[in-house]
């Protein structure tokens, strides 16, 4: 038992910041996502209906720009989430005193990350193939088709845009889960090395 006369240390909280994604960041992230998807539709529209080369060039550059910006934001968001998951693991590790409990907990967490990484990679590949197929249908095959088919091509390109942002997100999530898994395995290796050294002594 601790000495009851021990006076606990007091810390004054100087300032409070929030490290969650604020409303503005969320709005910006979702705006970029929607912009990237809708610009794919605009590109298809400009190619099949407007038939203006300048408009087509403008919309294709915009689509690439929005996709690029969205990809950056998605990476930031996923890295942030990964950081907090890592913190949570650290927190539980601090709470568990028993060595075997810690190993079990980290092993379980690492296994879940590995499964999630594989799942996200498969989803990403699937999305990428589908998006590629839809873009091929929309932009490459026949520009002189009936009006009904042209409308289908615009829908296909919007769907392609949606699947592209999904595959970007899935791949980035897979990278993050993979990195967390590697990090946890390294934790276990270091832990094992320390335990061996303790037992050796």
């Amino acid at each position, binding site marked *: 038992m601790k000495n009851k006369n021990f006076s606990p*240390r007091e810390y*004054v*909280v*100087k300032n409070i910041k*929030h490290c969650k994604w604020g409303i503005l960041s969320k709005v910006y992230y979702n705006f970029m996502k929607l912009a990237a998807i809708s610009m794919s539709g605009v590109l298809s529209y400009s190619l099949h209906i407007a038939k203006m080369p300048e408009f087509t060039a403008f919309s294709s550059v915009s689509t690439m720009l929005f996709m690029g910006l969205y990809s950056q934001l998605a990476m930031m968001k996923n890295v942030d989430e990964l950081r907090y998951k890592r913190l949570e693991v*650290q*927190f539980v590790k601090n709470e*568990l005193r028993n060595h075997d409990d810690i190993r079990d907990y980290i092993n379980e967490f690492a296994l*879940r990350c590995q499964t*999630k990484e594989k799942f996200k990679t498969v989803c990403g590949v699937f999305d990428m193939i589908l998006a590629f197929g839809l873009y091929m249908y929309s932009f490459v095959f026949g520009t002189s088709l009936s009006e009904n088919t042209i409308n289908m091509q615009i829908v296909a390109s919007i769907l392609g845009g949606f699947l592209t942002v999904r595959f970007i997100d899935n791949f980035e999530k897979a990278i993050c889960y993979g990195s967390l898994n590697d990090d946890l395995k390294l934790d276990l290796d270091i832990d094992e090395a320390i335990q061996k050294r303790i037992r050796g002594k």
Partner: protein
Amino acid sequence: MLEFLDVVTLDDNNDYIVLKVINMNNVNYVSLVNKDNYYDFKLLEEVNKSNELVLREVVDDTILEKIKLQTMKDMRKLLNKIV
């Protein structure tokens, strides 16, 4: 009142992230981890002193054990939810 993922600067000028706030007997217990060193971990209680937020170290073993148990239960739920 502090919330999950708030960043606080304590009087030692280090930044800490709030990991968990547990309310027990109308007292908020806050667990913090240093932003730059995850091994620097603190379990403190919220105290209001003349309208200033003060965090005080928890020294009572019974309270520490209760919070630990509560945290473990919550973390199991969280683990199943996030991964």
